[in-house]
């Protein structure tokens, strides 16, 4: 389908706060994004919308409903109760679902990620826990792209290439249940679910602060086994252009150029336009 016909729902409730820059990322690429309030999808609004009218769904960053219980917990509970079935169908039909930062936390809370035992597992299989530093960490991070195949969100990124995309979160440490950590990780690796790992500028294994949260295996982003649901902690929408990317003053290149975040939005739209 044509790029301009690709409808992207950027979903929000009170406390999501990265929706405008996320919306702009799709808009700048020529797609047809819309900021949609959860209430619009559940019919409690004077402007109702239906999930099936969109070709991609994005959960932007923020602090949905304050994140007072656990990051993403309230948003996901509300989605599950009102929209669960529509969402499963949406994913199973192959449409891409992208969650960034708080959106990643929501996808994990929903059971869409890592999704080892089904499209949307009844209980969360993992958690994005409080950073090891016990502080909110806003800092540039460097990601190594390690997904080999089925790259719905990263087809324009080479295997092993490094991308500088900033992080900003207090709960970003990807953790699996202790007793099943090893087998689940093995399964995720086998399924080619790990997309991004935090690394040092030279590409070697990251420690704090390059891994800002203490994630196992330096995991920064993963997909579901099918590859069409991706969550990541760093914010590609903040690095859409070079001008908002970290450290551009040290590398005099044209600022009209795209930043490293561009690849993700562009890959996603490419996938939709090819597939649907």
């Amino acid at each position, binding site marked *: 389908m044509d790029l301009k016909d690709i409808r992207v729902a950027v979903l929000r409730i009170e406390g999501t706060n990265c929706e405008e820059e996320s919306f702009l990322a799709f808009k700048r690429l020529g797609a047809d994004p819309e900021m949609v309030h959860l209430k619009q999808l559940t019919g409690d609004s*004077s402007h109702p919308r239906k999930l099936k009218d969109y070709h991609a769904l994005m959960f932007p960053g923020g602090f949905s409903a304050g994140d007072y219980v656990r990051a993403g917990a309230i948003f996901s509970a509300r989605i599950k109760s009102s929209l669960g079935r529509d969402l499963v169908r949406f994913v199973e039909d192959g449409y891409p679902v992208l969650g960034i930062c708080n959106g990643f936390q929501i996808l994990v809370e929903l059971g869409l990620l890592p999704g080892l035992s089904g499209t949307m597992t009844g209980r969360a299989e993992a958690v994005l826990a409080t950073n090891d530093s016990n502080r909110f*960490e806003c800092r540039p991070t460097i990601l190594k792209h390690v997904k080999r195949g089925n790259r719905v969100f990263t087809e324009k990124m080479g295997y092993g290439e490094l991308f500088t995309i900033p992080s900003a979160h207090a709960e970003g440490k990807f953790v699996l249940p202790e007793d099943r950590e090893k087998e689940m990780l093995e399964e995720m690796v086998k399924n080619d679910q790990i997309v991004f790992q935090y690394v040092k500028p030279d590409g070697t294994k990251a420690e704090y602060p*390059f891994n800002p949260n203490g994630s196992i295996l330096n995991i920064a982003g993963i997909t579901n086994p099918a590859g069409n649901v991706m969550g990541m902690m760093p914010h590609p929408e903040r690095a859409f252009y070079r001008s908002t990317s970290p450290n551009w003053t040290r590398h005099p290149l044209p600022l009209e150029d795209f930043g490293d975040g561009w690849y993700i939005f562009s890959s996603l739209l490419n996938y939709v336009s090819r597939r649907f």
Partner: protein
Amino acid sequence: MNPDHYIKRDVHFPLYDINLLNADDEALQTIADETAAGHDLNEMKRVKEYFTKLGRNPTDVEFQALGQAWSEHSCYKTSKPILKNTIFNIDAPQNILVIKEDAGVLEFDDEHAYVVALESHNHPSAIEPYGGAATGIGGILRDVVWMGAQPVALVDPLFFGSLDYPMDEVPKGVKHPTYLLSGVVDGIRDYGNRVGIPTVAGQVTFHNSYIGNCLVNVGCIGIVEKKHIIRSRVSGPGDVFIYAGGRTGRDGIHGVTFASADLHEESDTESRGAVQLGDPITKEPLIHACLEAVEKGLVSGMKDFGGGGLSSVVGEMALHGGCGCEIELDRVPTKEEGVAPWEIWISESQERMMLAVRPENVEKVLRLFADWDVEAVPIGRSVVGKNITITYCNTKVLELDLEFYTGGPEYDRPYEFAPRDVQERMPEEPADYNEMLLKLLCEENIACKGWVVHQYDHEVRGKTVIKPLQAKLGLEGHGDAAVIKPVENSWKGLAISCDINPRYTLLDPYHGSMCAIDENCRNLVAVGGRPHSFADCLNFGNPENPETLGDFVESTRGLGDVARFLSVPFSSGNVSFYNETLNGPIPPTPTILGIGLVEDIRKCVTSDMKVEDEAVYLVGQTFEEMGGSIYYEIAGGCSGDAPMVDLDNLKNSIEGMLDLIDKELVSAVHDPSEGGLGVALAEMALAGDLGADVDLSALGKMRSDIKLFSESQTRWIVEVRSGKEGTFERVLNSYGLSFLRLGTTGGKNLIIRDGKKELVNLPLKRMREVWEGTLHEKMG
């Protein structure tokens, strides 16, 4: 409470008449004390006189409302006459609305304006640092939103006692600086990050005169299409007042009168109820809903509930629209049953806005707010005339002439300036300069503020083109100013900086305040921003003390003199008096938020050194100006001479430096401030992970330590692009500016010589350990 003073009305809710008509001076004073409404005796007499003419007593609602409206915090009764003669009325073509509202509005480009507000949240933060700071952020956001603007950046200058202050010497009822800093940063982080506006600039200053009265100043910058600028007034008779946002409760009662009195030992227990409770997750949709209503043209006027709550908002909106108003107070949604009418009227509960809407738009506005899950209720209307009438369950509880109500008193209080008597003492020249520089780098005012800055989301909204921390990936570096690119299809930017050095103003409020403007200009210019407007938050002690008021007059005179000379206007501000500690007033602290306009953000420069073998220059002149310097504080020197600003030189330097940046001749720029040249060079080297070898002999005949650590104003260190040295020097000569070539970048050591004498030779790694480590060590 003396029952003769308060007569209960025969209604089913709490309502009292305050018996002023029969009260003598003593009784008036007692009533003032018992009601905590904040009136002094003169004001009590004025209230009594007004009601004597009406032939009745005021209700508690009326009485409390006047206390709010006439507080220093609300009506600037002391400061206004002084500010009129100092910082107000600086004409500039960019002025759209300056000083007239709580936020200033200035031209950004043909279609857009930017909005700036800065205010204090000192007393609440000293009592309850987390809630105080958080609600400070909430309040300043509303100030920008009610102009119709989208907030794009937050700033937060903070002032505490030393983190090393001995715990057992902290006075009773006072909280230790470590606890305060931690709570305040948590509050700003949790509110600012949640509401999704980047915190991009600020300062953290430590000085023991803030023990017992820390300062938390908060600022916000917004952007608005000119056609959507909204005023805080009704459009005429018949506008409907719509109350929107959070419910009203008993939190934040007497916030403004609390802000207009000294803190004392029992403030903690007595005044906790004056600290409001913030809720960023109500605020965030409230902002969206208000801005959407503005964009759709449904709103005639809008104002936030700040100090004084409803009582301040409604009257002013009506009066400024040339109207009176009628309010049904029982329609205001409350957090609990049984909140008395006077409490509803003056509560400072957070996350509330007032909209004035034409009757035909009311339904549309209510539906829009419902879609955002934000409560919105019509509570009254504007009417012909000049009276404000409030009913509660059909009983009239307030009826006042609006001009009397909002026309607070103005005082010409006595003031005198007391020049400081400082014994000059030059410290011994350091035997070991390496050791001295390391001492400076771990001094808490100079040490890296990464611990604070990384906790604030400074990139949300994806428009922060120059970040507050500027360094090679993974390292730390203090930038001079941050830059936001607020408009999608424009390369124009807003540079943002905050500064005041209270060590200078303590010695010399006039010249010290000039330095605050100078440093803001230096910071803005360093990234490529042309100084365009200032906002001020004037934090001082008790103005009833003539010497404190003398400092205030001197300080604002200094601010006004520089800004007027540069034709850069003050757009908005706030006065915070009564910042007193057990040891007297805080240092004069006129916090300045500087906004610079960047023509093309692609030319912005950062402070980190970048390329091996590039020339390092110093632009500006260095004098023996050691008063208030961190070096003297550490080395045991004393001087009364705060640095001075040469106005002509400042003006020319701004032009010259901007020209250099525009011509793309420079790789890095940083201004020396606390710790002088030594610290500034170290910061640039640490941020870029690139050493330098420089020689100070060309600075003249001063002692080496003075050359290295003097805090003279209007100076920049510049790394010049390879091969551009000639053009660089020609440009500076054409502006008649002084400059010196200091040396060259390179290596992993910072080497500083004075002729044949090698003063400093330190590996970057060693400097980084102390500079980056200090705050982490102290804060955990």
